[in-house]
């Protein structure tokens, strides 16, 4: 749990709102604390009055104030007191946990089965040539011709080829799985079937022509085993080409848009199936897209609500006149027409609000930069040659961070609140980052970089990697290949990504030769002579 950043407030028990999701502040535990801090009196007798309230009103302030009024009245008329609850779950948390439970079991099962099939196939493939070589010695050792020089040379070749095959299979197939995809890899299935058929056909031939007839030509048998190993190496080459090399050449350009705030990026992908393309997009998403901040979306939602709230439709003609569909359509048309005619000044409000916000952010930023620069001047790295200071003076990076943190804490807190990033950074993470910067001789500007601009999701703590569970929504089958104009959605708990793909056009390039001696220049003259 993240510790609240109000360094000037003290409190002992606290109770969360239980079972109520705060909409956009689902992950804002700190903001919940602050909400609690304003309306704590009526709630529980165990919480203590908070001394100083933060001066800056949060977004969603109007809803909070309304609620506060309600809470005061409620406290006066009832005597029941809710007990403090340390653990409370919102509705969304419950849904998420149940989904986690049921999905994890199914996925592990499939993963286990896949692994075991792969291991069995591998063992079969590895031991088949050895079996081919050893069985004649076991079954008919007397009839067997002795192994000459060439034959023994082939033993060495079999041994090394098997070793190479082993290493290659380990490198290609036995890597930790990156993700659990909805359907199986078509190519892997094809290759497994091919290998199985291949080995089975070799065994068939061996058992019919060699075991039954008890062939004495041992060199021929050894050569047969060598040919099997060669063919397996070629199949492995085929696997490398199909699974790894084919999608390296960029073929499609995909455009990825986040549905909530419109962040768009473009990537080049090769010929992949839709599920593998989705996986590549998700991996790029974690590196490139700035973190999803629900607090930034509430402004537009409130504006939209205001638009709708302005008009109300009354049916004057009385009910049951026309078919209900006709009424609904005419109602909505009337609303649209009225909204268009209404003199709406909300654009004006938006403009001034945004200008004001911009100014405020810049002012806070300036204060923050100055505070951090000043804080960094208070410590310096101790040189080896300096006379030994008292052990109390010498600090390790963590202590140094804790020493200079209070002087910049307030400015940083205010800045984060203005840019609505306060839920992304806990005090602990900020101090850790500060210790990291001090250890690696980073300048104040480098320290501030991660707070001034929202970074990619990778940058924040594990709990912010929201939605490691993604849903792929696609009209085409997810194992079919990516095509020009294919669209699919990647949905996660809070938002969704819309992905459209376009084929990279065929480029026809021609050449033109320029002789280096052909670069000649003359002066442009424009003289004027007076006569």
């Amino acid at each position, binding site marked *: 749990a993240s510790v609240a950043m109000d360094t000037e407030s003290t409190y002992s028990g606290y109770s969360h709102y239980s079972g109520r999701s705060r909409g956009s502040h689902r992950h804002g535990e700190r903001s919940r604390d602050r909400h609690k801090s304003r309306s704590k009196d009526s709630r529980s007798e165990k919480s203590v009055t908070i001394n100083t309230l933060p001066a800056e009103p949060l977004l969603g302030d109007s809803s909070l104030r309304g609620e506060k009024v309600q809470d005061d009245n409620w406290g006066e008329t009832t005597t029941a007191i809710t007990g403090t609850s340390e653990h409370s779950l919102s509705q969304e948390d419950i849904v998420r946990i149940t989904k986690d439970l049921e999905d994890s079991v199914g996925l592990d099962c499939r993963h286990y089965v896949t692994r075991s099939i792969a291991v069995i196939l591998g063992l079969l493939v590895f031991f088949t040539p050895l079996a081919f070589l050893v069985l004649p010695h076991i079954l008919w050792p007397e009839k067997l011709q002795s192994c000459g020089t060439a034959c023994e040379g082939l033993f060495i070749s079999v041994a090394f080829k098997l070793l190479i095959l082993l290493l290659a299979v380990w490198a290609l197939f036995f890597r930790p799985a990156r993700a659990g995809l909805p359907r199986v890899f078509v190519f892997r299935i094809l290759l497994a079937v091919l290998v199985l058929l291949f080995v089975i056909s070799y065994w068939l031939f061996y058992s019919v022509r060699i075991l039954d007839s008890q062939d004495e030509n041992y060199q021929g048998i050894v050569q047969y085993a060598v040919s099997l190993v060669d063919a397996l190496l070629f199949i492995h080459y085929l696997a490398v080409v199909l699974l790894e090399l084919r999608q390296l050449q960029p073929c499609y350009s995909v455009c990825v848009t986040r549905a909530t705030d419109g962040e768009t990026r473009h990537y080049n992908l090769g010929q992949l199936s839709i599920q593998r393309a989705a996986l590549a997009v998700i991996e790029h998403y974690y590196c490139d897209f700035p973190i999803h901040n629900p607090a930034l979306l509430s402004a537009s939602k409130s504006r939209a609500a205001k638009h709708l709230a302005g008009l109300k439709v009354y049916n004057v003609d009385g009910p049951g006149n026309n078919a209900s569909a006709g009424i609904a359509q005419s109602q909505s048309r009337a609303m649209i027409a009225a909204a268009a005619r209404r003199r709406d000044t909300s654009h004006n409000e938006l403009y001034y609000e945004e200008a004001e916000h911009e100014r405020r952010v810049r002012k806070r930023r300036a204060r923050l930069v100055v505070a951090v620069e000043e804080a960094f001047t208070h410590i310096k790295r101790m040189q080896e040659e300096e006379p030994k200071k008292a052990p109390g003076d010498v600090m390790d990076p963590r202590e140094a961070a804790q020493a200079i943190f209070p002087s910049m804490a307030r400015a940083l807190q205010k800045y984060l609140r203005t840019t609505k990033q306060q839920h992304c950074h806990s005090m602990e993470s900020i101090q850790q980052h500060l210790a990291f910067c001090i250890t690696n001789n980073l300048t104040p500007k480098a320290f501030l970089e991660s707070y001034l601009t929202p970074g990619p999701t990778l940058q924040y703590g594990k709990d912010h990697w929201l939605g490691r569970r993604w849903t792929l929504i696609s009209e085409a089958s997810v194992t079919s290949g990516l095509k020009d104009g294919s669209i699919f959605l990647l949905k996660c708990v809070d938002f969704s990504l819309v992905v459209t793909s376009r084929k990279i056009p065929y480029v026809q390039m021609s050449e033109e030769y320029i002789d280096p001696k052909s670069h000649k220049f003359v002066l*442009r003259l*424009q*003289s*004027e*002579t*007076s*006569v």
Partner: protein
Amino acid sequence: MSFVPGQPVTAVVQRIEIQKLCQGENLILGFSIGGGIDQDPGQNPFSEDKSDKGIYVTRITPGGPAEVAGLRIGDKIMQVNGWDMTMVTHDQARKKLTKKREDVVRLLITRKSLEEAVKHSKGSHPRQ
């Protein structure tokens, strides 16, 4: 004012006679020329056809002999004392104008307003 290669150049010209003014040991005419076959015709602000490499009057000293004689800025000089000025280099033109032995230069100059005046007076009669 543009020319077709191989065809004789025709233009409506005005005769201007300028008396050189004696200024110290120099004889000056009171105007400046620009252009020439060795110059960049595209930068000539007075020419109609930007490939015209003729000699143009670029400046006139107010009150000088050239202004008194009737020369105007933007005039194209076609002949100086009988010497052709349509296909000369800038330096050759300057030399022809500043001969020390002559104190009078007789110029044939052409300008757009002359052509238009002739056209209007002749009505719809096309000029060869």
